[in-house]
């Protein structure tokens, strides 16, 4: 039972659009329901109770105790899942904690420990930049300031991973709301993320500085893991005469992970990472994929799920206007948003991840861009919902609107991602949120319609 009685001052009522009370049952009546797992229902009702979907259908009967939301003109989708992010782990910086229902805002106390500068590593044996034992599930807090903003884009769930080092830690699938951190966890561990840390020229730095150093390091880790497992098994069977294997929490963390997340953006990186994943003999997922359009067949053959970054490549804002970018970069700018559509046609399972895109309008724009580039809206929704859930092994309980599944939903007015559409409601674990319209608008002065050059450098910043 999740009914919690909250006391909120009237001020918060105005500025934080939360419901003060959580009804035990909700019915969204006569809406267009995109179930994803089954048919699109042009006019149906969804019943939520106790955080689960109790019923869905054109003829679903509304329980008498249910709070009824009129779904006319609204569309219900499963809540969007961000397939890889740090959402939920408050990031270090200026006070990022905000008041949310149920907790007193903590003063500048981020859940991620301030990263201690790691001691300089002198080789793989120092396990440089390894945080494989860190768990997102231990680090998530509802106070992360981004949650409200991304809910306004229709996201209810995130595959959240810690974010430091090369072996970054065990991720957790989390709800993007909750009273306490641990309430947010849907499933964990869902995987281990690898990120290559390259640069610095190597002089006077910590191992590894080069890409090949990173690769060798991960390779050595997995060799160590293999040996560790073998050593443990051998020791259990034949303890006498053998030195006991040391407890190794890095390797324990690795061993616990059901899959590995490996990065690849450019086409030769895709080749490299597919080979590497196969070499490591672990189930793996590839994330990035901006130049994926050059490797559609290979990805299909590899039969590996992929996560596509929503941070579409763009001409850097800071560029020298006299400098012409390479054709390859231009092509990436043009083609990257078309990759999801191509993957859909080829039958490759993919999901999306935010890659640092953290505001509702930006997320919407990014999703619209790929729909405009050839991904069908239905496939886009699939990627954001059931695909992500299946990739992380929770497709049986999340990611579609079906009886018995977790009640994570997004209700829009207008079709998802359309410029004029808005997110009206978001349900996280059955709890209702009404994202503010301000959060869904681009920031003031960002996208004005006027083309008057006199607007340039207008010190007032905006009277239009």
């Amino acid at each position, binding site marked *: 039972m999740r009914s919690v009685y909250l006391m909120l001052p009237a001020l918060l009522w105005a500025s934080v659009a939360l419901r003060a009370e959580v009804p035990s049952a909700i019915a969204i009546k006569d809406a267009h329901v995109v179930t994803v797992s089954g048919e699109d229902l042009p006019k149906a009702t969804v019943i939520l109770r106790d955080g689960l979907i109790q019923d869905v259908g054109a003829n679903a009967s509304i329980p008498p105790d249910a709070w009824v939301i009129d779904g006319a003109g609204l569309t219900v989708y499963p809540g969007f899942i961000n397939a890889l992010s740090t959402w939920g782990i408050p990031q270090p910086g200026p006070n990022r904690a905000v008041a949310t229902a149920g907790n007193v805002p903590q003063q500048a106390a981020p859940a991620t420990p301030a990263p201690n500068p790691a001691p300089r590593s002198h080789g793989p044996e120092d396990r440089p930049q390894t945080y494989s034992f860190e768990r997102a599930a231990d680090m998530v807090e509802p106070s992360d300031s981004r949650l409200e903003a991304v809910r306004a884009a229709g996201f209810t769930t995130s595959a959240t991973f810690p974010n430091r080092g090369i072996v970054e830690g065990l991720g957790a699938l989390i709800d993007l709301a909750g009273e306490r951190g641990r309430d947010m966890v849907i499933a964990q561990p869902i995987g281990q993320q690898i990120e290559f840390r390259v640069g610095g020229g190597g002089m006077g730095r910590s191992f590894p500085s080069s890409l090949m150093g990173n690769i060798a390091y991960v390779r050595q880790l997995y060799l160590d893991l293999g040996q560790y497992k073998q050593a443990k098994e051998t020791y259990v069977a034949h303890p006498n005469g053998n030195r006991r294997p040391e407890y190794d929490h890095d390797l324990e963390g690795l061993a616990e992970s059901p899959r590995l997340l490996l990065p690849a953006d450019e086409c030769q990186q895709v080749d490299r990472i597919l080979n590497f994943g196969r070499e490591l003999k672990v189930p793996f997922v590839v994330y990035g994929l901006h130049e994926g359009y050059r490797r559609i067949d290979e990805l299909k053959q590899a039969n590996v799920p992929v996560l596509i970054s929503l941070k579409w490549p763009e001409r850097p804002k800071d560029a020298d206007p006299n400098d012409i970018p*390479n054709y390859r970069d231009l092509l990436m700018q043009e083609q990257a948003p078309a990759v999801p559509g191509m993957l859909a046609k080829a039958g490759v399972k993919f999901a999306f991840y935010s890659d640092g895109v953290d505001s509702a309008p930006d997320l919407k724009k990014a999703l619209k861009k790929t729909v405009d580039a050839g991904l069908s809206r239905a496939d886009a929704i699939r990627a954001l919902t059931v695909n992500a859930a299946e990739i992380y092994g929770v497709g049986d309980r999340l990611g579609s609107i079906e009886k018995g599944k977790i009640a994570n939903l997004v209700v829009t007015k207008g079709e998802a991602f359309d410029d004029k559409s808005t997110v009206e409601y978001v349900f996280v674990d059955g709890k209702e949120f009404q994202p503010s319209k301000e959060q869904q608008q681009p920031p003031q002065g960002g996208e004005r319609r006027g083309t008057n050059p006199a607007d340039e450098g207008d010190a007032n910043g905006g009277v239009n």
Partner: protein
Amino acid sequence: MEFPKLFLVALALSGSALFGAADNSVVIRNVTIHPITAPDISNGSVLVIDGKIAEIGTRIGARSGARTVDGHGLQLYPGLINAATNVGLEEISSLRDSVDLDEIGMFNPELRAEIAWNPSSQHIEVTRASGITTVISLPGSGARSFRGGPGTVISGQGALMHLEGWTWEQAAVKPSAVMDMIFPQVETVPRRFAAFLAQPALSYQELQRQYRERLRQTGEFFEDARRYEKAKAASGPDFRRDVRLEAMTPVIQGKTPLLVQAEREQMIKEAVAFADKEKVKIIIADPREIGSTGALLKQHNIPVVLGKTFDLPMRDDDPYDAPYTLPGDFYKAGVKICFGTFDVEFARNVPFEAAQAVAFGLPREEALKGLTINSAEILGVSDQLGSIEKGKVADLILTDGDPMQAKTNIKQMFIAGREVSLESRHTREYEKWMKRP
């Protein structure tokens, strides 16, 4: 004539023959002469008196007291010129103590490369062994050097030096031949090793700002120099002199050209506009692209000292042979070109840089001119150097073939009429270690 008088006359004549060799004259016979500014002469001879070319032709009379050099059918070319080096000022590039380039400060017109020329630098012998008799030595290491940031605009006076001489005084041909300048640019093209040295990446806006500031300061500096020149001309002996600004006077007066390094099309255009505005003479140095500047340079009569032909294209999408066709492109646009290497270690390879341009479109004669007469003209010494002509300084090389080919051997060399050894550190190592049992 009476016999005794005849005898005296004969004695006098023979005496003058004995003592008449005080002019160190040399006759080089039996060579194919490549004058550059005139058609080739087979079976030719050249007479050198007092370090100058006195006569060229197929029949040169015997001259008593002159040393005769039998050319054995070899080729005779003018000594080659490298129009941009740091020879004499840098010994080992990675050892700062052995390098005298890139003085601190933005405007250093008073610095003179000439006086820092180390006559014992091993690079002198090494460079001339490839047929090069004169080089311009610049006090700055150039826009593309890995040293330092975008600090210097004017590095100082570049000197035209013979690759020979007991002292720099003796080696100097034209002590202040050019004023070395790097035209301000927006530093977005990454410098070599910038990432390696972990230089911070600045925003484009910031780079633009820095560039504008440097440009403004440059304009101001020229303005100061102009004012100084005017004031000094109008003043008496009490005038308070300023070494720096005074060094700019020949530039202001159009006597000393600025050797302006400008890599990209945009910079070249700006440099030309700058020169127009400041009313100074410029030479464009080490451009990496021509863009649409060919016509502009021709119209303004601005020549170019090319940097290395053996280079990589600037951008991934550039044609693979962009640096190879560049000299030819400038030539076809009507721009006068000559070759330089803007370094020390490979200064000797300037003939090969020219040859590569020939492979990709520059006519061979033009390439040769770019190592001889064009360089001389651009540097304002064409009355002395750059071709085998009567009255010019006898800088000559004898080769067994085309000096722009690696398989050619440079056999003999004369600088200002004196034969110089083609031995160097490199040949001495060869001799010594071949003998190791």
